[in-house]
C-alpha cells in the first residue's frame, strides 16, 4: 500500500514542469543538510570536551539547556518543516483504508530530516559519555527519552501547522516563561533540569516521554482520520471578504489598476503577506553590520551590502517572484486589455515604492552615524534604479507557480533556484559592492557612495530602453510560462 503512495510522490516530482528547478533546489538542500549533519556530529563530540575543559559537568549542563534546544527545534520546525502533502482527494474514493492514508502522512513526517538530524548530535554525544565511564544503562535510557521527546516535538508541530489558535497559545507560553526567566522571577530550567537529569539517573523516567509520544500519535491519528472529509479538514477555509477603498492610488493613472490589485494580493493571501514580514526583518538585518556585532561584517564593503538588504527587503522577497504571484490567473492577464509594458511597469512601481518606504524607515540607522544611513540611501537608490529592473528580468524565467494560500515555502521556495534566475540575481549584490570598491580605492569612501548612487540614477535614465528589452524577453517566454503555470504548485 505504501508503495503506491511513494510511487505517486515520485511521479509527481519527476513529471512536474519545474523539475529542473526542483532538482537543483534539492541538490542545494542536500548539500545544506550534509553540512548540518557534519556540524551536529562535531558538536556532539566536541561539546563534551568543551564543557569539561571549562569546568562544567557536561551531561548536566546539556540537560540544563535542553529545554531551549527543544523549544528552538520546535520553532525551527514550525517555519521550515514542510508538512507532507499527499494529494488526498483522489485517494478518498479508491479502495484505500483511511487509516493507511493517515498512517502514511504521519509516518512520512517521522522519517523527516528534522528528526534524523538530531541523531547526529545525540549519538556521538552518547558514545563520548560511554567512553568517559557514564552508566551505560542510564545513558541508554536518557538517549531513548531524548528520541521520544524530539518525536513529541514532531507531532506538536503537526498540530501547530493545522491549528492557528494553538500557535498563539504555545507562543504566549514561550514568551511568558522566557520573560519570567529573563527577569529572574521564575527559572523553568531548574525544573526541566531535574527532569532531563532523571532520565539518566532513574531508569523508568524515559517511559514518560514514551507515554507522551504514544498519546500524541493516538490523538493525531484520530484528529486527522476524522477530518479526512471534503467538508472538514480537506475543505478550503473560507474567509469573510473585506473590501477596501484604494482610490488614492488613482494618481498613478492606468498603472493604479494593477497597483490596487497587487496591494489586495499582498493583504489577502498568506503567502504574499510573509513578504511584508520579510521586509521588516530585512530592515533590522543591518543591525548585525552596524553594531559591530559580527566581526567579519565590520568593514565598508559589507556596509554597502547591508544598505542593499535594508532597503531591498521587499525587492528580494516580492520582486523575486514576479510574475509568479499572478500565476493562478496568468491567462487572464495575458488576454485582458493589458500590455506587457503596463503590467511590468506596475510591478516596478510597486517595488520602487516599497523600496523608498524601506529607505525612509531606514533613517533609524542615523543613530550609527551618517555614513551608515548613507549606505542605506545609496543602497536604496541602486535597488530602485538597477535592481528593480534586474529582478523583473529574472522573473521572465520564473516558471514555478506560487500557491498564494500557503505560506509554507516562503523561506525556501524552489522557484528562486532557477539557474537563469540565480545568474541574473548575482549582479544585484556584486555590482554595488564593485562600484563602491572602485570609488573606495581611488578617491575614498564618499566617492564610493557617489558611484553606487550614480549607477542607480543611470538605471533610472535608461528605464525605457531596459523595459523594452525586458518586455521582449517576457513575450518570448510567454507561452512556456503559461504552460508551466497550468501545473499545480509542486
Amino acid at each position: 500500500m505504501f508503495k503506491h503512495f511513494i510511487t505517486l510522490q515520485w511521479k509527481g516530482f519527476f513529471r512536474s514542469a519545474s523539475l529542473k528547478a526542483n532538482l537543483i533546489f534539492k541538490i542545494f538542500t542536500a548539500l545544506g543538510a550534509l553540512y548540518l549533519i557534519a556540524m551536529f556530529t562535531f558538536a556532539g563530540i566536541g561539546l563534551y570536551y568543551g564543557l569539561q575543559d571549562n569546568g562544567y559537568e557536561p551531561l548536566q549542563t546539556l540537560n540544563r539547556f535542553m529545554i531551549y534546544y527543544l523549544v528552538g527545534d520546535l520553532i525551527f520546525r514550525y517555519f521550515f518543516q514542510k508538512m507532507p502533502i499527499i494529494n488526498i482527494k483522489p485517494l478518498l474514493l479508491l479502495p484505500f483504508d483511511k487509516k493507511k492514508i493517515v498512517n502514511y502522512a504521519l509516518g512520512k513526517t517521522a522519517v523527516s530530516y528534522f528528526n534524523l538530524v538530531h541523531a547526529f548530535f545525540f549519538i556521538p554525544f552518547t558514545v563520548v559519555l560511554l567512553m568517559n565511564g557514564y552508566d551505560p544503562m542510564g545513558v541508554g535510557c536518557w538517549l531513548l527519552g531524548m528520541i521520544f521527546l524530539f518525536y513529541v516535538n514532531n507531532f506538536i508541530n503537526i498540530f501547530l501547522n493545522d491549528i492557528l489558535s494553538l500557535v498563539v497559545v504555545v507562543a504566549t507560553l514561550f514568551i511568558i516563561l522566557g520573560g519570567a526567566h529573563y527577569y529572574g522571577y521564575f527559572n523553568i530550567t531548574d525544573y526541566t533540569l531535574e527532569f532531563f537529569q532523571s532520565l539518566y539517573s532513574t531508569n523508568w523516567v524515559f517511559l514518560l516521554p514514551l507515554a507522551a509520544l504514544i498519546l500524541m500519535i493516538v490523538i493525531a491519528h484520530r484528529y486527522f482520520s476524522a477530518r479526512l472529509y471534503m467538508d472538514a479538514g480537506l475543505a478550503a477555509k473560507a474567509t469573510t471578504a473585506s473590501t477596501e477603498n484604494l482610490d488614492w492610488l488613482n494618481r498613478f493613472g492606468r498603472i493604479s489598476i494593477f497597483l490596487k490589485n497587487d496591494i489586495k494580493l499582498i493583504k489577502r493571501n498568506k503567502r504574499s503577506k510573509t513578504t511584508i514580514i520579510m521586509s521588516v526583518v530585512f530592515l533590522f538585518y543591518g543591525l548585525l553590520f552596524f553594531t559591530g556585532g559580527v566581526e567579519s561584517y565590520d568593514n565598508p564593503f559589507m556596509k554597502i551590502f547591508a544598505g542593499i538588504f535594508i532597503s531591498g527587503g521587499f525587492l528580494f522577497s516580492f520582486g523575486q517572484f514576479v510574475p509568479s504571484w499572478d500565476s493562478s490567473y496568468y491567462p487572464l492577464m495575458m488576454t485582458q486589455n493589458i500590455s506587457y509594458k503596463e503590467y511590468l511597469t506596475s510591478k516596478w512601481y510597486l517595488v520602487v515604492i516599497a523600496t523608498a518606504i524601506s529607505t525612509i524607515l531606514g533613517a533609524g540607522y542615523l543613530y550609527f552615524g551618517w555614513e551608515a544611513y548613507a549606505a542605506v540611501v545609496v543602497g536604496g537608490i541602486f535597488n530602485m534604479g538597477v535592481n528593480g529592473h534586474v529582478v523583473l528580468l529574472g522573473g521572465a524565467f520564473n516558471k514555478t507557480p506560487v500557491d498564494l494560500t500557503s505560506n509554507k515555502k516562503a523561506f525556501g521556495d524552489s522557484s528562486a533556484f532557477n539557474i537563469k534566475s540565480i545568474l541574473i540575481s548575482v549582479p544585484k549584490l556584486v555590482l554595488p559592492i564593485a562600484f563602491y570598491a572602485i570609488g573606495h580605492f581611488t578617491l575614498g569612501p564618499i566617492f564610493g557612495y557617489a558611484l553606487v548612487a550614480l549607477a542607480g540614477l543611470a538605471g533610472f535614465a535608461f528605464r525605457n530602453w531596459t523595459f523594452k528589452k525586458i518586455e521582449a524577453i517576457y513575450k518570448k517566454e510567454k507561452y512556456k510560462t503559461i504552460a508551466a503555470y497550468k501545473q499545480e504548485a509542486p
Partner: protein
Amino acid sequence: MISIHNLSKTYKGVTVLQIDELNVPKGQAFGLVGNNGAGKTTLFSALLDLIQPTTGHIENNAVKVNESEAWKSHTASFIDETFLIGYLTPEEYFYFIGELRGQNKADVDRLLAGFADFFNDEILNKRKYLRDLSKGNQKKVGIVATLIGNPDVIVLDEPFANLDPTTQIRLKGIIKKLAADTGVTVLVSSHDLQHVTEVCQRIVVLEKGNVVKDIMTSQATLKELEGYFSGEDVLKSEISGDTVSNSDSIN
C-alpha cells in the same frame, strides 16, 4: 472579424489542430462543437495567443494575434477559472475588468444591474472572495465579466457546463441577445448540441483537429449533428442543401 490561415498545432509529432482556412464574419454567433480532444480549447487558446501555433496564424480584426497586442482591447474571453482572480470579491473583479476596459464603477454597476436574475442573489454583496464561490457561481462571474465594456469579440469555452438548468436557460437568453446584435462576434464551444444550435447562427464541428462540418444553423441542424455524433450520418442527404464543406462559400 476572425480569420484563420493554415493554422496547425503539433505536440510531439501529434497534430491536434489543423485548419487551413476559416473565417468568422463580424456579428456572427459561432458555435464550435466536437468530442473531447477535438481541439476546441486548443483553437480558442491559439485565438487568444495563449499557445503558439506550429504553423499559420490567426487574425482578429486584421490584427495578427501573435504579433500585436492590439486585439486585446476589443476581445473578451472566459476559458476557465484561471481567468478569475481568487482573492477578489466579485464586485472588485468586475470593477478591475471594467477599469481595464475604460469603464468606471457606475458603468459597471449599470451593466450588473441587468444580471440580477442571472446571479440569482448568490454573487453580489455576499462578502465572499471568488475563490470561495462554487464552481457554477465562479463561471457566472467569468461570463458576465466578458460583457463589460462592449467588446466586439467574445470567446466563451464551454459556458454551459457546470451550470444549473435555470442558469443555462438564462445564459442562452444572454447569448441570443448578443447574437442578435450584429456588432458583436460571439464564439462559443460546447458539448451540448441543443444549446449550441439554439444560440448560434453557424456551427463548426471539429474532429481530431479538423473541421469536418460547417453548417449554417437551421431547423434540421440539431438532427444532423445528433446523427453525426451518434455515428449515423444518414440524414446527410436530406439536408445537404444546408451543409457547406468550405467556409469560404459562406462569406
